[in-house]
């Protein structure tokens, strides 16, 4: 228990150096609007031992480059909001993400993330080809595994309904 303050002090002091390193070494993520996915983090992982060193550099600066459906409402919010120098509208590249829990019998065997609807350019291009099976295949190919879920604190009673609980029960 007594270790933490020492570690924290070190973290605070060492941070400027870490950020400078990131700025110099991380490949910039460009073209978030294209719908294709720059896999900057995986490529960075080969040479990096600390996850913080692979921090993504987002270069998106305005809502206009966003492909997200969630900006339908955020665009309106942007117009009326006073922007600070540091904030930027978030480009949720995949738009609305839905978590899919797969069970085999009563056992949870997979928790993955899929795009929740097909309004974004990526899914529309899939639709052009779309036999229903083909589309299903394409969507399942986009599913990503997640390791944990961050959110406001739940009570022990609410935990059972949480996505983290599904992950904890993963076979």
């Amino acid at each position, binding site marked *: *228990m*007594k270790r*933490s*303050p020492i*570690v*924290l002090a070190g*973290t*605070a002091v060492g*941070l400027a150096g*870490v*950020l400078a390193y990131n700025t110099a070494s991380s490949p910039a993520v460009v073209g978030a609007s294209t719908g294709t*996915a*720059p*896999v900057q*983090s*995986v490529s960075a*992982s080969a040479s990096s031992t*600390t*996850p*913080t060193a692979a*921090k*993504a550099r*987002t270069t998106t*600066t305005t809502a206009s480059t966003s492909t997200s459906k*969630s900006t339908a*409402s955020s665009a*309106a*919010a942007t117009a009326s*909001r006073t922007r*600070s*120098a*540091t*904030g*930027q*509208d*978030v480009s*949720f590249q995949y738009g609305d*993400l*839905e*978590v899919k829990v797969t069970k085999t019998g009563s056992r949870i065997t997979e928790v993955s*993330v899929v795009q929740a609807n097909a309004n974004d350019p990526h899914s529309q291009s899939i639709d052009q080809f779309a036999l229903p099976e083909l589309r299903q295949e394409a969507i399942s190919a*986009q599913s*990503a595994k*997640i*390791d*944990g*879920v*961050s*959110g*406001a*604190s739940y*009570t022990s009673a609410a*935990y059972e309904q*949480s*996505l*983290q*609980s599904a*992950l904890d029960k*993963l*076979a």
Partner: protein
Amino acid sequence: MTPTSKSTADVIFRHAETVMGTVVSFDIRPRGLPYERTRAALAAACDVLHRADDVFSLYRPASPLSRLRRGELTLADCPPEVSDVLGLCEQARELSDGWFDPWALAGGVDPTGLVKGWAAQDAAQVLQEAGVGAGMVNAAGDIVVFGQPSPTRFWRLGVRSAEDPDRLLCIVEGSRAVATSGNYERGEHVRDVRTGAAASAALSATVCGPDLAFADAFATGLLAAGEAGFEAVTHAGYEALIMLPGGGGVSTPEFPIFKGALK
């Protein structure tokens, strides 16, 4: 604790510990650490959480923190970690430009906005020092990780939508600590320190950075600060994303949203 894979290289232990009025989830990749030592490390990590609960719970009238608030104990009478945590609270108050302030409201100091993150961070450190190769500790939505879940990728952590428990705002990758605060799970328990009213500048605030104690504190403060708190947070070396009451989100420039292929 149940091993979920037989192969030595990628054994995964998952464990859910009921503590602090909630459930703390563990994902542990021993990477060669023997089973008994992994078990012992997990038990020690859980002890850290229970100890934090015993000392800092405001639901227990006899906890040292409760007694400190009532004036029955001085700080010197309390276990040493109380001073440690209050010291971190002072740092977090300063770094957040006062948006996180455990001393602001009546009733005595309330470090609740930082303690859970601090305890989970300490639990993860116990695992790491015991030789566990990689792991994740999720204290009811506030997450700290170390190592990598596989050689080819970093931990991927979904950020829950404030409006739908089964939807994610985004996936975060490459951050050691991720904390989210919101008033959507347990009612309006976070208050604006300047007004005393329920914090309402954001539906939720998610903060990423090197340490979960500070990430937790900053996320709490941003619920009241909204975008106005971004400068302090980035200055401290953290990144933030808030979900706005009118819909949509705003983040700091380098918030580590996962932009790789979803597969």
